[in-house]
């Protein structure tokens, strides 16, 4: 069964001064037990989508189901199975992480014993045990964020919505959050997260969705998305080639002391062969998610700009 199913979902914000079409007919499914990483530039509509799914914002059109329950019609059934960390949410400063988790769980209806056990487990999973009794007001920003993650992870929610859960976390802390998220997915919980760290989306997500100005540009596993780009190889050469020569294969970018360009497989082979003959230093690798993102979103932006030119 799908954990989330959105069909032609749209959202238009309205206020007295105007409107903003934040989502334009987005259709997306998230299988149960998967980790979906939603990426996109600032203002792309990630938070808007996540808030509609987590029943804190009403959509303007289309349909969205969580575990088969409509988020508008069957809100209560949805709410019994989800938990969310909103973007820029902050913990109560007069509690310590242990209390934060404990009271969040008893608020959600867990018994005291259950809340206690779950709190200890979450503290240990997220590496928060040594800070468990430190007041939030004395914790660093990253530790506060981790305490928020621990709060929702500790709950029994089957689907977790995490809006930029790792913003401000150090590399080690980020990995402990990843570990906790992976463990949750193994336990058949579904994770919907947004992030600006593409390496994170790549390392963590079983599925990736790219949103740009309210439109879903790509969705699928890392490999499926890589196939969508025209140039799945990243070629870097130093010496042995002129710019003009490389322009025959793509759009080379000068990186201080070498050229970088994205190519298809055939061109990558050809450049490699030539580099070998000429004794030039060369590296060829599949594109990273960041490269894919820039290619997909970049194409969308430039297409739009062309459109604007025609209109002018």
């Amino acid at each position: 069964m799908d954990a989330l199913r959105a069909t032609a979902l749209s959202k238009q914000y309205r206020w007295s001064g105007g409107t903003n079409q934040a989502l334009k007919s987005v259709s997306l499914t998230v299988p149960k037990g998967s980790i979906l990483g939603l990426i996109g530039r600032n203002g792309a509509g990630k938070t808007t989508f996540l808030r509609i799914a987590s029943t804190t914002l009403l959509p303007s059109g289309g349909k969205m189901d969580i575990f088969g329950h409509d988020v508008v019609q069957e809100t209560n059934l949805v709410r019994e199975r989800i938990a969310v960390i909103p973007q820029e949410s902050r913990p109560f400063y007069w509690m310590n992480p242990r209390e934060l988790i404990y009271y969040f769980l008893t608020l959600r209806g867990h018994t005291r014993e259950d809340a206690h056990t779950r709190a200890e487990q979450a503290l240990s999973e997220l590496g928060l045990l040594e800070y468990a009794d430190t007041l939030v007001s004395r914790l660093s920003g990253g530790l506060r964020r981790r305490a928020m993650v621990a709060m929702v992870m500790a709950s029994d929610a089957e689907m977790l919505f995490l809006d930029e859960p790792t913003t401000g976390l150090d590399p080690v802390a980020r990995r402990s959050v990843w570990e906790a998220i992976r463990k949750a997915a193994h336990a058949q919980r579904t994770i919907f997260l947004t992030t600006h760290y593409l390496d994170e989306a790549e390392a963590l997500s079983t599925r990736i969705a790219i949103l740009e100005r309210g439109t879903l540009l790509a969705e699928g596993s890392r490999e499926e998305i890589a196939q969508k780009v025209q140039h799945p190889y990243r070629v870097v050469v130093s010496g042995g080639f002129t710019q003009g020569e490389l322009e025959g294969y793509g759009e080379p970018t000068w990186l201080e002391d070498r050229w970088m360009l994205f190519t298809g497989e055939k061109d990558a082979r050809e450049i490699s062969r030539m580099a070998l003959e000429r004794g030039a230093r060369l590296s060829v690798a599949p594109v990273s998610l960041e490269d894919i993102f820039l290619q997909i979103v970049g194409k969308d932006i430039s297409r739009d700009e062309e459109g604007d030119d025609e209109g002018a």
Partner: protein
Amino acid sequence: MKERKLASVLSIIAANGFLPLRRQPLFLINTLTSPFSFLFLIFILGGPDLIGYGISGGLVLTILSIGTSLQGDMTHYKADLKFQEMVVASPVKAGTYVTGMALSEFVFSIPGMCVFILLSVFYAHYIFLGGLIVLATLILLWIFASALGFTLATYLADMRETFMIAPIISIFLTVVPPVYYPISRLPPVVRPLAYLSPTTWAANLVQGAMGISSTPLTLGQGLLDGGVLLLSAAILFLVAWKKSQWRER
């Protein structure tokens, strides 16, 4: 998980009422400061004759402050901490959250309540019936204050607005209407205006029960006062319910 109303309400009372108190015991006397300042001024300026008004006004003000802190906390949790959103996306229903919050704010007013109830008993020597009337009035007033706090919280977007609006509202509910003085002190032409404030009706009840108003409290008048209080609370709740952005549009 299904909603467990009682567990949720108790959790909020503990987390939002008792825990902050344990961390910062000054919260306990915080709600005492305003009513005591008024009591002190009234005693200095008016002498022992008027002190009854300082006490009955203090009771009303103490309960009303529950509404003010409820509003402040709810706006803070919604706008600054985004905690409300975490509650919305959970099995906990809006009514449970508001009830829990309103009860947790009550915790801070316990000292003020105790002090002023004791003072009123010493002052008025009222017996069973009077005490019952005062208690009933305070409960109605608590419902009204919570409704007011909830309504305001749905309209005020952030704490900046709160700091601006809350004192103004407080003045028009406690200082201007005859809460700290008998309504007979107002010129007859403006007296009807005083009845626009629900606190006038509450003060009328408390002053009557304490036997300090010029006209004794009749059963009919008492029921009318209580009815108006309850009605205004109901209207406010209705407005809040209709207008509250539990889920953003």
